[in-house]
């Protein structure tokens, strides 16, 4: 379908993304069987063709592509942590590798890495292990907890308990993602492990949502969150802290 250039760009940007629209004229316009009140700023997924149709009909006066990237750069505050920064911290964890080259001791600022001998296992930080693996210079040995039976036990325990159970590793989510993406050939039953870790993650996030909800509704001032990993805290950080600060400001202005 040929679009005028102005809408071509909008169409490309908003394909399969959320589009915020402000309506102008008619009382009701039906977009995909949803009626919108006038002068509302609404955001929901419209197929871009309908947006174009609405533009030409004059029923919406502006459409702003609100793709994920757009939202993030607009609202990123300085107290936010990017998931890639959490991954950065997770990459400092040590993992065992078996190099296929030899190198004498490397004296890094953060510590010494022992002599590399082909065939002998050695502990290195994850960032180095991944780089060596990508250059096909080593084989990564999965950490002890990355085992199907252990993860199954943990998943069942997590589902039974109401509180958060101790995690296999403070960075289990990032390590699973990194190691399975780059070294799945070195890890037995990689797909099952991926599913199990995802189940554990989903259960914990559900619990986190419930407890955040009760924290806010009961207007608590303090919470203990042992056994929560940084990645889980980070998913809820922006929303929760903003909400709490906002509520505090509203409350303190009333009193």
């Amino acid at each position: 379908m040929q679009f005028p250039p102005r809408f071509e760009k909008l169409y490309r940007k908003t394909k399969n993304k959320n589009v915020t629209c402000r309506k102008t004229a008619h009382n009701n316009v039906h977009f995909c069987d949803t009626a919108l009140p006038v002068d509302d700023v609404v955001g929901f997924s419209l197929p871009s063709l309908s947006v174009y149709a609405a533009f030409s009909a004059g029923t919406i006066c502006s459409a702003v592509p609100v793709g994920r990237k757009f939202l993030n750069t607009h609202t990123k505050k300085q107290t936010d942590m990017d998931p890639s920064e959490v991954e950065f911290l997770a990459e400092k964890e040590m993992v065992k590798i078996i190099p296929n080259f030899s190198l004498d001791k490397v004296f890094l600022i953060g510590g010494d890495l022992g002599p590399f001998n082909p065939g002998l296992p050695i502990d290195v930080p994850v960032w180095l292990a991944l780089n060596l693996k990508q250059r096909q210079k080593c084989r990564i040995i999965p950490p002890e907890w990355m085992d199907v039976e252990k993860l199954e036990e943990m998943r069942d325990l997590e589902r039974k308990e109401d509180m958060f159970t101790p995690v296999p590793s403070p960075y289990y989510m990032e390590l699973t993602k990194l190691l399975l993406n780059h070294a799945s050939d070195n890890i037995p039953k990689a797909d099952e492990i991926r599913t199990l870790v995802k189940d554990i993650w989903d259960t914990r996030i559900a619990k986190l949502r419930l407890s955040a909800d009760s924290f806010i509704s009961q207007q608590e001032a303090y919470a203990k969150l042992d056994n929560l990993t940084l990645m889980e805290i980070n998913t809820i950080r922006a929303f929760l802290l903003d909400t709490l600060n906002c509520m505090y400001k509203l409350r303190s202005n009333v009193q």
Partner: protein
Amino acid sequence: MSDALSDDGSDFNQDDTQEDVMTPAELIAKLEEAWLNEKFSPELLENKSEVVECVMEQLTHMFCHQQESNLQRVKKGDAKASIHRMEIDRIRYVLSSYLRSRLQKIEKYFPHVLEREKSRGEGEPSLLSPEEFAFAKEYYANTESYLKAVALKRMPSNLQTVDMIKAVPEPCLDSFVFLRVKERQENILVEPETEDQREYVVDLDEGSQHLMRYRTIAPLVSSGAVQLI
């Protein structure tokens, strides 16, 4: 204080056996703690200039060392050089992120930062490094002259001044933060949210994580007893 942190860059080849000198690994750990604390705290924290200087020293040392060994050995140096370079890049990222978040806070709260710096006592550690202080003052002067040129000089003469301290919002110390406890703390007061709740005290155990207001634990952050996460 300065000799406890004096780090001879050439020591990175062997472990430090003296107890009062920090090893480079500890230095990097301190930098990362400072980075996380600065990122998550609502106000500008104390300046950790010794840590920054020592890390810069280590980085330049390592970088020069790598340049030398690259000229001498080509093949083996390659593998080692790339490992060193990756580590240098990682540390440089943490360092620049730390300095960047400090600058953002200085820009956001500049009158209050300058006020705090002016009114601090003699023996207290400084809030801003000399460069940051110069930056804050310049920013203040630039903002004033900008406001004057754009709007103020066209106002009636009795309204031509702007009190920056009142005009710029203060950092909200009552924001909530996540923290991890490094040293056990007792009897931390938790203030009530609503009128029908009463204040109570909690003990913070080592290694535990909590969510509470920044104001009550602010002194613990500066002393290093808790870590913001």
